[in-house]
């Protein structure tokens, strides 16, 4: 192997109005090296990758590929050099088939259309990622969609593969399978740039790492020799508390009780709920793990009242059946919600923060004989902003102009301040930086300690293990058994997320 580096990026800078996304960043990757790019949300990882893939033009900087200076003005240029990219948010069109998607993205580089399907099968077989070229993407699981993206890169003569947070949407088993593929590629001499903020994964497969913070390189290291704590420190900087063990509680007084909740799918894009039973006790946090698109959305809608059912009797708060109650009626019983979608469900983008605070808190003394008590609304909003450290100029900022993490802190603050008896949350810290994550988790734990029943649906297993008292998984609209978190090992949970409990249950039923 020669000494010329596969990729050298030197002095890359890119500014957007009001923020310097990349500030003089340099990055080097060798042949067959799996190189990690670490950093928090907003550290500039995605921008740097877009520069490398020709989606974004840098203001300054040089890119050397195999030792030669190259100019990458569009994704096709990157692909022509042998650079492939797997986006974090898949760049797939749901209404097209696998083959059509690949054909569309690669253009002339896709080669002969009539043999394309066979080549897709060959490549996916070679790297152990089975795929049917004629399936519509809408019918594929997240893991399968990722395979489409990877196969799309491998169809070309690829020398550098960029993966943007590839594991955030996978079950632990799928992650293992992905790592096998990546190692095989690396053995064949293909360099891999692995973008992540999951340190144990980086330690597992990467042999070098570049760490970004606030648009600048904050360090280099060998992840195999560095402790996760040291790497995390480079990511978040000093002064943020990272590590802490949470105390588990076990209570037995049921607050929310769901018995045999079933709901047919409303369309083929929807997942049917099948006989879901669970209880959430007062003063505990129940976590539900699962890969996206396994019925989490339908479950949360049924619990929040977004979908109501006048005939069924399957959801109870203490002794009251609430199936037929609207979200407003449920809120009046002391239920609060933090939905997955922040803009559009959690907050109205075009309204300012005070108005958004009013939206769900109007029952709490903010309205007098129908007239809005604006002074109280603003006071409440200011209280939320201060207490939850929401970064915003004032209370009249539009919700849409806050960053995702800040808006999430605001929404959680708004719901928590209502002192609910039951809090339903979906992906509470998705896309939120570590500092804010710690604050949000603390708020949830404090609420639990005051006796609130909390249900958390999340894809982030680290988070669930950190805060849940009891834990289970959802797969294909069915719920696994529920175990105390400390009794449920990660591999077991991973198998449950893949639906293993269904066969276990069947076997038990057959044996009985």
């Amino acid at each position: 192997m020669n000494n010329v580096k596969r990729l050298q990026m030197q002095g890359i800078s890119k500014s957007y109005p009001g923020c310097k996304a990349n500030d003089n960043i340099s990055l080097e990757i060798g042949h067959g090296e799996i190189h990690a790019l670490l950093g928090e949300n907003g550290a500039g990882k995605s921008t740097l990758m877009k520069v490398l893939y020709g989606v974004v033009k840098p203001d300054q900087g040089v890119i050397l590929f195999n030792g030669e200076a190259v100019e990458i003005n569009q994704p096709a240029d990157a692909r022509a050099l042998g650079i492939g990219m797997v986006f974090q948010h898949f760049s797939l069109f749901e209404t097209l088939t696998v083959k059509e998607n690949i054909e569309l993205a690669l253009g002339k580089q896709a080669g002969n259309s009539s043999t394309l399907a066979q080549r897709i099968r060959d490549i996916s077989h070679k790297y152990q990622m089975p795929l049917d070229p004629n399936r519509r993407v809408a019918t594929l699981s997240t893991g399968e969609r990722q395979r489409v993206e990877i196969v799309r890169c491998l169809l070309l003569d690829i020398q550098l593969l960029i993966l943007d947070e590839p594991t955030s949407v996978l079950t632990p088993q799928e992650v293992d399978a992905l790592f096998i593929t990546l190692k095989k590629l690396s053995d064949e001499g293909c360099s891999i740039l692995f973008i992540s903020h999951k340190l144990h994964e980086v330690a597992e497969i990467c042999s070098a790492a570049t760490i970004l913070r606030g648009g600048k390189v904050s360090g280099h290291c060998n992840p195999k020799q560095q402790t996760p704590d040291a790497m995390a420190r480079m990511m978040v900087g000093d002064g943020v508390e990272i590590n802490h063990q949470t105390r588990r509680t076990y209570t037995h007084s049921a607050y929310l009780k769901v018995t045999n909740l079933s709901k047919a799918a409303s369309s083929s894009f929807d997942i049917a709920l099948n006989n879901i039973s669970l209880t959430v006790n007062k003063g505990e946090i129940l976590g539900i793990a699962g890969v996206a698109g396994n019925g989490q959305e339908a479950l949360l809608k049924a619990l929040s009242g977004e979908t109501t059912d006048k005939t069924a009797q399957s959801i109870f708060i203490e002794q009251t059946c609430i199936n037929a109650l609207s979200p407003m009626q449920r809120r009046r019983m002391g239920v609060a919600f933090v939905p997955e979608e922040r803009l559009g469900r959690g907050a109205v983008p075009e309204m300012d923060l005070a108005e958004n605070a009013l939206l769900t808190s109007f029952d709490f003394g903010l309205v007098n004989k129908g007239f809005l008590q604006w002074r109280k609304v603003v006071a409440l909003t200011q209280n939320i902003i201060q207490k939850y450290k929401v970064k915003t100029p004032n209370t009249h900022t539009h919700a849409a102009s806050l960053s995702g993490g800040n808006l999430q802190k605001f929404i959680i603050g708004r719901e928590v301040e209502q002192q609910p008896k039951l809090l339903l949350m979906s992906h509470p810290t998705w896309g939120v930086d570590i500092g804010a994550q710690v604050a949000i988790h603390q708020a949830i734990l404090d609420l639990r300690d005051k006796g609130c029943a909390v249900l958390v649906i999340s894809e982030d297993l680290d988070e669930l293990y950190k805060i849940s008292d009891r834990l289970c998984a959802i797969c294909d609209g069915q719920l696994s058994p529920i175990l105390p978190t400390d009794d449920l090992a990660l591999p077991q949970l991973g198998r449950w997320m893949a639906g293993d409990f269904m066969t276990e249950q069947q076997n038990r039923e057959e044996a009985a």
Partner: protein
Amino acid sequence: MDIDLITNILYAAIRTGTPLLLVALGEMICEKSGVLNLGQEGMMLLGAVAGFIAVYHTDSFMLGFVIAALSGVLASLIFAFVALNLNATQVATGLALTIFGTGLSAFIGSDYEGKTIEALPTIGFEILQNIPLIGKALFAQDAMVYFSWFMVIGCYIFFRAHRAGLAVRAAGENPDVGSNLGLPVMKIRYLAVMFGGAMAGLAGGYLSIAYTPLWTENMTAGKGWIALALVVFASWRIERVMLGAYLFGFASIMHLFAQGLGISISSNLLAILPYAATLIVLVVLSRNSEKLKLFEPVALGKPWHKTR
């Protein structure tokens, strides 16, 4: 009813449906790329008046249709610039284009009001046109009817078998992803809007040059609007657009016959028939919301600009 009558009804139904088919086809492609252009009525009227004037002065049908298409394209470019470059609301921009087209066409055409030209001749195929019932409807039409079939087949192949068709669908489903993959989303949308403009211009030209053939103010009588509804209720599928257009043609002809037969219903009520029948059938067809999702351009009507 005798055979001759039915033959003639079918023949006339297709002729009546043709302008609707042309404009709806153009709008469908435009919407597939994610752009909602409500200016169809205005572009049709401009095409109608420009085409009519061209034929009136030169006696060249070819030139008439070229001018009609070009005026549609010019009008659509105004829309494209305002809605795509300046990112104005597509709905408002389209409405403005219709109002603009209606007014401008009336102004340009005021001197030609009531004048007539010779209609576009029909082209009959020997033997075939003598097939009972359908012969006249299918093989004794004018050139534009054949052209509309050619366009239907062309669009069908474009979407099913060509990469450019995929690119248009991609631009309408998720322009951000398309752009990240390196598709020229802006160019695709511009071309789609221009195609829509050309087809609307041709549809207008067909009305004033072949169908009536004369120019009167506001002669499209809401066909541009029906075309917009047609595209949605046909769930963006070519074969259904065609079906809907001919259904409209058929119902229009039936209402004329019903009047001729002296059925004693108010003619105003009967005039609703084609609009109502077309909508009802298509609404019933498009009830399956799941199938609808497969063809619906998700990003339809949303302003988009490239971030760089």
